[in-house]
């Protein structure tokens, strides 16, 4: 294993450790703080299911590479992971539950800032929206479910000891399920960027279980999460479970269930697809954070009891932690990228070029884009998304959606379809008919992602995006992820910036 890779890998493992130290509180915090489950028991259950989730269901993240996968150089990904991990670690030391995903997004914004890439404004809006929506939804569900539970317990006259057993079992099951999801959903952020350079080879255990190199890599990431759970998660658990409002065991269970329901209802594409396919009204999908949903549910129960028990000072610290996390992560990332690039001479980002070539303009025109104003930018190769956007804005004023479309279309992403690349494609992820279409393009080169997409769609209907309806939303999302995966497999180094403007004919 290369020493550089090992060093880069360490930041992923550190992020995993921070994630374990912070996010385990969402699934077991209330159970441990209400003394229903011993910390050691909770840590063991959490660790086992985090590992299972990461190894069994985390493999899907290998194609998406997680949020850090948007970074195009390993050095940059290393620093973004390290910045996010440091921020989460600092918050964990202060016993504050924060969103690890928001720390990662914050670090990516720092990288975008440093590399001159465009920050997706939707990502920023999402963070701002979660600060408000998540606690509110958590509080609403927490209060409603708690009220329902007290009513049911009153009516059923269940014995205190039986109630204790059922609650304990409920907490263990919910915690195990939550831990599994934690491992499956977050391992992409922890280890995703290292997938292409995984040093492991496939191993078979006893001839009946085969662990791929990605699964082994994720296993080590999951172990880092487990170490975080065991060594440092107790403090955040106590903050979540008793720092804001002291909870009884039923309240502890209600919090875990409320946060799971909020996460499922407001982030499940599957549910939206199901409702739309049955002709039922869909629930609007909004970004959700589990830490914020948990704290919201705790507050909801506290308010239901009159609000006197709520420790507003502790709540204030937690809320300020949420605001600080992405900001601090982006600042740390920016400064450390500067140091890594200029002091240690490491590549922290690969230059990205934008060019509105003739085919790109034709493509935009086909999509209904008015050509006016684009001509002055046409044929010019510009380095960096922000520079291209500024040039575009200087020439013409476009609505935000159209501007995004132009920028996305103009982004150069050279790809060459080769026999070796086809051999690398994960046949379990890409349907046979889709793979045949890819094989038919062997030997061809593409300069833009949309060109490859069009070529594939022309060859095979399974590569064609469906009309943009609610029913098709999840299918299109999956198709886009597959396209992104194929693009990344066949990506070759960026074209020489000094080369003459391309004359790609469609």
């Amino acid at each position, binding site marked *: 294993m290369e020493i550089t890779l090992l060093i880069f890998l360490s930041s992923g493992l550190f992020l995993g450790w921070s994630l374990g130290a912070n996010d385990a509180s969402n699934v077991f915090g209330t159970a441990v703080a*209400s*003394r*229903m489950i*011993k910390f050691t028991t909770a840590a063991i259950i959490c660790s086992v299911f985090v590992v299972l989730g990461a190894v069994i269901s985390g493999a899907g993240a290998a194609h998406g590479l997680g949020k850090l996968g948007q970074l195009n150089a390993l050095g940059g990904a290393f620093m973004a992971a390290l910045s996010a991990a440091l921020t989460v670690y600092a918050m964990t030391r202060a016993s504050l539950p924060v969103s690890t995903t928001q720390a990662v997004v914050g670090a990516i914004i720092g990288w975008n800032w440093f590399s001159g890439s465009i920050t997706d404004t939707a990502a920023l809006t999402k963070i701002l929206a979660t600060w408000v929506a998540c606690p509110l939804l958590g509080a609403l569900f927490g209060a409603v479910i708690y009220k329902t539970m007290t009513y049911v317990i*009153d009516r059923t*006259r*269940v*014995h*205190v*000891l*039986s109630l*204790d*057993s059922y609650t304990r*079992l409920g907490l263990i099951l919910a915690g195990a399920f939550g831990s599994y999801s934690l491992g499956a959903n977050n391992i992409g952020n922890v280890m995703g960027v290292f997938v292409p350079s995984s040093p492991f080879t496939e191993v078979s255990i006893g001839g009946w279980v085969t662990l791929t190199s990605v699964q082994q890599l994720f296993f080590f990431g999951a172990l880092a999460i487990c170490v975080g759970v065991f060594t440092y998660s107790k403090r955040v658990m106590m903050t979540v479970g008793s720092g804001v409002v002291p909870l*009884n*065991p039923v309240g502890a269970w209600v919090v875990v269930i409320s946060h799971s329901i909020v996460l499922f209802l407001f982030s499940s594409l599957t549910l939206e697809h199901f409702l739309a396919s049955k002709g039922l009204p869909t629930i609007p999908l909004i970004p959700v954070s589990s830490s914020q949903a948990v704290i919201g549910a705790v507050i909801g129960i506290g308010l239901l*009891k009159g609000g006197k028990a709520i420790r507003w000072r502790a709540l204030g610290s937690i809320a300020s932690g949420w605001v600080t996390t992405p900001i601090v992560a982006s600042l740390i990332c920016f400064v450390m990228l500067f140091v890594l690039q200029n002091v240690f001479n490491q590549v922290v980002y690969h230059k990205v070029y934008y060019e509105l070539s003739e085919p790109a303009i034709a493509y935009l025109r086909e999509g209904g884009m008015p050509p006016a104003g684009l001509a002055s930018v046409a044929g010019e190769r510009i380095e960096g998304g922000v520079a291209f956007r500024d040039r575009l804005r200087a020439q013409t004023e476009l609505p935000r959606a159209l501007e995004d479309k132009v920028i996305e279309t103009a982004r150069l992403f050279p790809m060459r379809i080769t026999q070796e690349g086809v051999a690398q494609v994960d046949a379990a992820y890409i349907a046979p008919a889709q793979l045949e279409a890819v094989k038919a393009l062997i030997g061809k080169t593409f300069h833009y992602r949309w060109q490859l997409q069009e070529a594939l769609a022309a060859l095979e209907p399974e590569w064609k995006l469906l009309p943009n309806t609610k029913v098709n939303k999840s299918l299109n999302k999956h198709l886009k992820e597959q396209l992104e995966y194929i693009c990344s497999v066949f990506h070759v180094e960026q074209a020489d910036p000094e080369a003459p403007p391309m004359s790609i004919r469609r």
Partner: protein
Amino acid sequence: MKTSKLALFSKTKTMEGLIDDFLDQVSNGGMKFEQGIATYIDSGAEGHCKDLVLQLRRIEGEGNRLRRTIEVQLHTEMLIPDLRGDVLSLMEDLNHLLGLAEDIFLAVTVECPAVEEPYQADFKLMTSHAVKTLEAAVLGARAFFRNLSAVHDHLNKVGFHEEEVDQIATRLKRAIFASDLGLADKMHLRYFVDKIDSLADEAEDVGDWLAIYSIKRSM
């Protein structure tokens, strides 16, 4: 499926059974105490009264054993962490009532106070109300475990019967000290009136704590 469900919750069911058994013992002890005082007044400390002392002692011993088992299991199995302290205090207090009833009855059979005919009815009535106070406290404790909203009704009865005991005790003491009995006999009877009254007072204290435990449980 049924077997695994039973195995999963068997410890809980065993504990529930132990608590119910313990409360049964306290309730039985109260009834045996009432029966014993009535027997003593009607036929003296010999004969059946001695059997009743032995029976009450056995009940008290069984109550003690059950309380210890419950305490140990609640701690070792780490059950009801939020209510454990309250439940253990409740068990201790109820066990104390059982012990107190046994102590009073034993003292009666040992010291043999002379309960003359004019005071016998009031003595029996006061004992009956004191035992009802104890039983209402036991019912309140049962409700605490299964039906929290009913606790208040039982505690209301605890208060009612304790008030009755107080009134009868005052009436009895006035009658005793207004009589021609010797001072030693008067003091001796007053002592037992106060002892039976204390059983009702202690039961009322258990009720007061139970009210607090119920508020905590409902939060």
